[in-house]
């Protein structure tokens, strides 16, 4: 009898504690982000697992993928389709069905070259189911900061070689100019 009364009084006290907790919450600042007007700090999204993306190897939109099919085999949801290209190791097709993906990271862990990772795309809208069937190569190309007209590794090497040659020629020209200006400068100095 007395125990029941004491228990009930304790219960009443706990109700009061609950009221104070919600009252405290009522007065504290909000935790949510009001999306269209504010967005989260990108730093807080670093741990967010969005849809997969290919890791860029350079600024021309080339990836690290060697078409080894490890990710395709590791995927429990069969959401990846990778087809090797005609020449070289680079994939011709890298399709990713986000509707089947469970974001388990088995593909990311199985990749020998570290060619795929999770993106941090939080603000994503798909009007149809098909809009979630993503072409990762196209996505990678769209993120390229420099345009590669040829689009192949050989062409890229050629461009790099040409650039290196141009730089070298420029440096030579500068050296030549310095050598030419040097005597003139020393001649002019005493004047």
């Amino acid at each position: 009898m007395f125990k029941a009364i004491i228990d009930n009084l304790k219960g009443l006290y706990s109700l009061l504690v609950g009221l104070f907790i919600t009252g405290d919450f009522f007065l504290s600042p909000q935790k949510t982000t009001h999306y269209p007007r504010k967005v989260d700090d990108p730093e807080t999204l670093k741990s967010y697992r969005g849809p997969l993306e290919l890791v860029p190897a350079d600024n021309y939109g080339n990836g690290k993928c060697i078409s080894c099919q490890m990710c395709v085999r590791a995927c429990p949801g069969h959401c990846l389709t990778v087809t090797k290209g005609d020449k070289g190791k680079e994939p011709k097709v890298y399709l990713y069905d986000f509707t089947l993906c469970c974001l388990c990271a088995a593909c990311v862990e199985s990749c020998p070259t570290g060619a795929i990772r999770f993106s941090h795309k939080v603000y994503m809208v798909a009007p149809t189911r098909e809009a979630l069937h993503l072409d990762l190569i196209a996505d990678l190309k769209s993120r390229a900061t420099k345009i590669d007209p040829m689009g192949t590794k050989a062409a890229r090497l050629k461009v790099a070689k040409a650039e290196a040659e141009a730089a070298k020629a420029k440096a030579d020209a500068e050296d030549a100019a310095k050598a030419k200006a040097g005597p003139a400068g020393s001649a002019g100095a005493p004047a």
Partner: protein
Amino acid sequence: MELSLLSFVQIIIACLLIIGLMVGNAVIMVYIERKAAGFIQRRPGPYEVGPRGTIQAICDAMKLLGKQLFIPGNVDWALYFLAPVLAFLPVLVLFLPIPFGKYLTTLQVDDGILLILAFAGLGVISNILAGWASNNKYGLLGAARAVAQSVAYEIPMIMALLAVVFLTGSLNLTAIVERQGTWPWEWNIAYQPLACFIYFVSLVGETNRAPFDLPEAESELTAGFHTEYSGMGFALFFLSEYANMLLVSFVCATFFLGGYRGPILDGFWWTFIKAYAVMCVIVWLRWTFPRVRFDQLLNINWKWLLPLSILNLWVTAIIIKFID
């Protein structure tokens, strides 16, 4: 009380004002409730419609007005349409004896609280009718719960009010307010704290508000007795629920919180401030406590509130007897 033409006109005008108050109250309370829910859960609540979401409730009301009245098959037509009307109409009568100000009472009735308690019982009938007529198992379960709950919680409620009536020696609400002083320690809450507590718990049970919202428990009964109602049928139930909430808050303010009397400048604003403070506490309770189980609900009533209220009444009677 003589019923002349003047008093008749007076009552008509007052009834119109009360309907306005009921509708306005529902709109304001929906906004307050949703905002409070938001803040307690640390989110902004309604935000998009109007400045800070202020006209969200009005837009919802418009949507309800425009909705199709969907009538499920095999309903009892007469009862199905009678129930929402029956839920709404008695609320008008309930507001008649409330003294908003010293002279601002629709109808000076000597047995004011008796009138309120008698007509408050009609609300339960509308719940039963709605649950029964809509030919739905959830509706019927909700109706059965509503009956058990309302019958149970009316008893300690009456006992708690009776203790105040003993103090005053009158059932007239204006007399009860007049007996209380202007300062909080002169109000009945200082003389009858236990009765005030019991009344407050039972009013939450009586108006079917969380944590005692068993008749319309969403997670168990979809919406309880008004599951099958859409459009204006639902709107009338909704309106009467908020009007009942307002009414019990006004009764609480009148009986325990000094009614229209306040530290400075007596007037109807004190009644409203106090009633809305009680309403805000009810909203606060709703977003704090989880719903009780039905046996717990009845245990609270029959094992705690009823014995305590009888004890309170008994002690009050003895003290009054010895002091006199």
